[in-house]
């Protein structure tokens, strides 16, 4: 409902403007050969149609509500000075450009497209190349960022910028973008009530998606692959994480999803495939994990620090080296009706629920937590023996940490699309 209303407001606003607006064409042998000159000559509500060609523009400030449309092949080259397109007004649309060559700085964050205190902006179908930051959103609201591609060549964290960086903003919609090889794919700091949907974030040096101090957000059906770490959610509340794919975040201390100081989140229907750690939870409380698939990870879930009152229900744990490990206190967490591929119990009454509880924390994972180097003994006979003896008579692992109703077969109703 909220989304629809927002759209209608934007549409009405655009409609009102276009009625009275002119269309200005920018290109060689045209009235305007420079976009910045065209902008300064345009009135609020005008549309600038930019023909194919190379435009050398540094600091293209858009200070009035304008629509910038690009013909295929229109390239804006920032020549390594500061921001390239700098949106400082409401209701600006930037569509279809190739924007390239942003100045790299260690002290200032320069971006290909920058918004500041803007409402109802639309950034769509742009391709950003050789940039420091891709899209930088500051103190803005009700923006749409859709189907853009940000292709970086980041190698080190310190010298690189983020793909889509949002700060002190609300009500953003970020969807179907493709971001690769930046520092963070998408970064949220003090951003609330926003949606991140259907993006692909690959090969980023740090995180595929990064939340800091951002509440009430939802991200759905995104794909995070081969990043330094998939998604980091830190110091945020009420985040919904649905039907995402976290894969191949495969490196030392790498993970699919990091939860740090997170409360009241929902993690539903996600797939974690071949990550060193599927979910790394540190200070995570009242989180619902359900319908997720943990497949071939080093650890499926690691709980560090205090994690209370989480519910882990109806998930599939498939062939992870270690299912669950924990450090610190683990009170009030519930494991129920999950499928564990390592489960060896029986089901006499054929109700598809194992008759013996499953203990997902093995003695070995406890040892690895104490002394990480011991991981080198993974799958050795001695470790199997101590795990078995611990299974028979638990001494080190907490008695209450178990799944009383483990499934005999994996769940199949996961929505992986």
């Amino acid at each position, binding site marked *: 409902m909220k989304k629809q209303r927002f759209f209608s407001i934007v549409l009405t606003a655009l409609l009102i403007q276009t009625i009275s607006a002119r269309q200005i064409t920018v290109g060689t042998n045209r009235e305007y050969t420079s976009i910045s000159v065209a902008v300064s000559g345009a009135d609020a509500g005008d549309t600038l149609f930019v023909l194919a060609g190379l435009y050398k523009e540094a600091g293209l400030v858009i200070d009035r509500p304008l629509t910038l449309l690009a013909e295929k092949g229109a390239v804006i080259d920032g020549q390594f000075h500061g921001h390239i397109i700098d949106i400082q007004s409401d209701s600006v649309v930037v569509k279809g450009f190739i924007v390239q060559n942003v100045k790299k700085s260690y002290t200032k964050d320069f971006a290909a497209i920058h918004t500041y205190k803007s409402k109802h902006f639309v950034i769509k179908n742009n391709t950003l190349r050789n940039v420091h930051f891709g899209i930088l959103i500051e103190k803005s609201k009700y923006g749409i960022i859709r189907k853009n591609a940000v292709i970086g060549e980041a190698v080190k964290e310190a010298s690189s910028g983020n793909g889509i960086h949002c700060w002190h903003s609300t009500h953003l919609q970020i969807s179907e973008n493709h971001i690769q090889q930046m520092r963070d794919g998408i970064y949220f700091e003090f951003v609330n009530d926003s949606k991140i949907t259907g993006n692909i974030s690959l090969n980023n040096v740090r995180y595929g998606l990064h939340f800091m101090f951002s509440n009430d957000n939802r991200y759905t059906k995104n794909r995070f692959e081969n990043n330094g770490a998939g998604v980091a959610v830190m110091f945020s509340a009420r985040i919904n994480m649905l039907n995402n794919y976290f894969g191949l975040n*495969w*490196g*030392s*201390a*790498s993970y699919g999803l990091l939860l740090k100081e997170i409360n009241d989140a929902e993690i539903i229907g996600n797939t974690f495939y*071949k990550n*060193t*750690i599927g979910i790394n939870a540190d200070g995570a409380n009242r989180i619902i994990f359900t319908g997720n698939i943990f497949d*071939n990870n*080093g650890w499926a879930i690691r709980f560090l620090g205090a994690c209370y009152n989480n519910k882990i229900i109806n998930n599939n744990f498939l*062939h992870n*080296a270690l299912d669950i490990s924990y450090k610190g206190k683990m009170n009030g967490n519930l494991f129920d009706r999950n499928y564990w*591929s390592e489960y060896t119990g029986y089901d006499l009454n054929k109700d598809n629920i194992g008759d013996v509880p499953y203990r997902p924390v093995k003695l070995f994972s406890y*040892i690895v937590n*104490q*002394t*990480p*180097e*011991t*991981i*080198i*003994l*993974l*799958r*050795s*006979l*001695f*470790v*199997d*023996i101590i795990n078995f003896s611990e299974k028979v008579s638990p001494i080190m692992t907490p008695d209450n940490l178990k799944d009383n109703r483990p499934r005999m077969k994996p769940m199949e109703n996961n929505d992986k699309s």
Partner: protein
Amino acid sequence: MFKILKYSFMDLMRSRWSYVYFLFYLVLGFVLFFLNSNTTKAVITLMNVIILLTPLIGTIFGVMYFYSSREFTELLLAQPLKRSTIFAGQYLGVSFSLSMSLVFGIGIPFVLYGIFTSSAIWDFTTLLFIGAFLTFIFVALSFNIALLFNDKIKGFGFSILLWLFLAVVYDGLFLLSLLIFDDYPLDKLALGATLFNPIDLSRILILLKLDISALLGYTGAVFQKFFGTPLGMMVSFALLSVWVILPVVIMLFQTRKKDF
């Protein structure tokens, strides 16, 4: 030497135990593949079997063969043959026949299952390769033990102990020392300790094939750097070769001074 190899090999090939061993792997392979759709899991189960069973069988067969072929050996020793020729031939005969049981026993079900079209072909090949390596290592070790003890019972006892030590006790001590010296940087110690046990080394090599390298890397850069690079792989395989060559050399040296 090849004549001796041939006769030892043929002698073993017609023994009942070779068939039992071969059939065991055959059945295991079929069970793993036709009851289990997941190749990763099959390879992991197979890994556990291979890194424990091939050393055990290699040790027992080696000792058994050595003692039971004593007469044959004496017959050969009276012929104009070099001692090293005789023992190297017997050693290779035993090692090859066991490796063949392993490779064909597991290979046949895998091939029938369509391994050549599967992406797991390399994991699988490494697995068999390492299994063969372990066979060669442990047959050499067992020959050494058999040469050391004229008493069959003692020889068997020590071989089993050796296997038990390398397969279980070593890792126990290893784990214990890691826990005790927790406060010190341990990665190099752990790495070293792994390299000195062929079973551990083989286990790590297979785990690396199964993409657990990053999991090892979790503990620190040393593992990652070592095992994650082609150099590390080469060093590991070189060490496995040392584990074959060294016992063989010692064995041949021992035979020079042995009375029959």
